């Protein structure tokens, strides 16, 4: 379980390998067909947080589903920890949160986790403890005995996360984990992902919220119309090598004038000078933070 030391990097090879993946969806009664993913190759190393970015319809979900063996590829191969995605046993080490997850409305939060625990081969006291732990982690302890039909969208997303983590997988695949979740909720999810990363768990997520991806991803790939148009380490992709930002508090006008004159004396050039503003997100969080978030779940 969580206490056992992770063997991160102990197994050779990537956590996820995608090679030459193409997926064509036939359109019934029409001659043309949709190419959702075109000759895609990816390699995700153990312990990495990888973000698959792209606009709507660019093939993110399709790629994730193929990796999980839910959709069959037209061409190419995908593997999880060296095991072909088409083999059921490749799913042993993965937790998956589909986009807009929808569970059985007639089950309570607790029963939902027990069901998925059983499917993952857990039982008895170990499962019970794990369920308590996870309900706590996602802040649904107080809603555990309510049917999912009464859950809000954010709560469903969180029970979905708990469900994905139930068997303590080595790889977690999240399709738009923060879709439909409010800013505080998505910050919680971000923290949770960072915590997974700290524990050496590989995370593959899709998103079109770029600011968020920027905060958590080690590497990103950008898909457009099923083609991987960019890929690399986030810092390398977005760093502007020859620019530096300084953010200073309580600086006197005098100090700022001094800095500016120092800049103008050197070979460097001052491009922009502005007052810092807070982000709308920070403002929102500030204004609504009086409740301790994770426990306010119903």
């Amino acid at each position, binding site marked *: *379980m969580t206490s*056992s030391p992770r063997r991160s990097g102990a197994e050779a090879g990537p956590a996820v390998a995608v090679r030459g993946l193409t997926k064509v969806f036939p359109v019934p009664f029409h001659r043309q067909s949709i190419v959702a993913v075109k000759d895609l190759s990816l390699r995700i190393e153990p312990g990495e947080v990888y973000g698959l970015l792209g606009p709507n319809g660019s093939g993110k979900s399709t790629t994730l*589903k193929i990796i*999980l*063996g*839910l*959709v*069959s590829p037209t061409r190419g191969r995908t593997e999880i920890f060296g095991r072909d995605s088409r083999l*059921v*046993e490749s*799913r*042993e*080490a*993965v*937790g*998956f949160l*589909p986009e*807009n*997850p*929808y*569970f*059985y409305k*007639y*089950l309570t939060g607790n*029963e939902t986790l027990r*069901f*998925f625990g*059983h*499917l*993952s*081969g*857990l*039982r008895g006291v*170990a499962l019970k403890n794990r369920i308590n732990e996870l309900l706590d982690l996602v802040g649904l302890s107080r809603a555990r005995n309510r049917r999912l039909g009464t859950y809000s969208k954010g709560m469903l997303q969180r029970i*979905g996360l708990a*469900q994905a983590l139930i*068997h*303590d997988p080595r790889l977690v695949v999240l399709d738009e984990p923060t879709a439909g979740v409010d800013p505080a909720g998505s910050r919680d999810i971000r923290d949770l992902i960072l915590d997974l990363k700290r524990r050496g768990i590989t995370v593959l997520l899709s998103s079109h919220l770029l600011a968020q991806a920027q905060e958590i991803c080690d590497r990103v790939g950008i898909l457009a119309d099923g083609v991987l148009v960019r890929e690399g380490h986030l810092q390398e992709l977005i760093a502007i090598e020859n620019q530096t930002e300084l953010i200073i508090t309580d600086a006197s006008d005098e100090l700022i004038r001094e800095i500016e004159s120092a800049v103008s004396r050197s070979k460097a050039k001052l491009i922009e000078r502005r007052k810092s503003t807070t982000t709308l997100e920070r403002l929102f969080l500030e204004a609504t933070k009086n409740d301790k978030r994770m426990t306010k779940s119903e």
Partner: protein
Amino acid sequence: MQTRYRPFSLWRIRAITANTLTELTRLKVFYVLLVFALVLIGSSIFMAQFSFQQEFQILKDISLGAISLFTSLLAIVATARLLPQDIEDRTLYTILAKPVPRFEYVLGRITGVLLLLAISTLVMAAAFVLVLYLREQAVVHTTLRQMSGAPPDQMADALRVVRSSAFNINIFPGITVIYLKACLLAALTLFVSTFATSNIFTIVVMAFIYFIGHLQATAREYWLQEHSGGVITRVFLAIVTLLFPDLQAFNLVDDIVAGTAISLAVFAKTAVLGLFYTTIYTLLATFVFYGKEL
């Protein structure tokens, strides 16, 4: 927590089975049983005017007919939505993203339905036997009162007539066969739902199969009279028999009501036929489900 992966796990199937039962229970399909109870009560009130032989006959006729109809209905309606709903709601994604082979999912689902049908059949059968027993006791009492002065052997004869017209040994195999017919229908519904475009489609197709299935034996005999039994005819008939199971073969109610004995051979043959069809349809459903794009 990483355990060795098992390609087949009764534990996982059990989880899906239990979930199916929970789902159907919470969707309140058991309300059908209340309707059955009403039919039973209604018919006993209606029958007060008949002689006891007629009364027991009608009671058995109506009750067994109702058990047969309700289990069939339950089998079709409860099964039709299971799979399409899981695909539409994408709950299947979360299930199959766990290490669950697709055949375990199908097996878990069908087992859940068969259990539901078993429970329903048992409850209805128990209610029916109880009512029959109570009516029999009532008639026994009246007979005793009416014949209070008669010699003992005459009285014993009269009671034997009452008892034999109420219960006969055929009731239980008859109900078993009704249950097997429902199992067959459930498995066939599951199979149809793997390629159906909507729940309505599945239910309409099943209603169609239900009626054809009751007629097909007669039609087949007629056909064989007209045509010689060549190879093509045989293949054609085999396909028809596969798609439209001979449901009339599962209709033993008339025999039970008439009190004719169901021979062990007939019972065994029908039971095997039911199990065979159920297995075949489950396999076909699994097969189609494996090829299905979710």
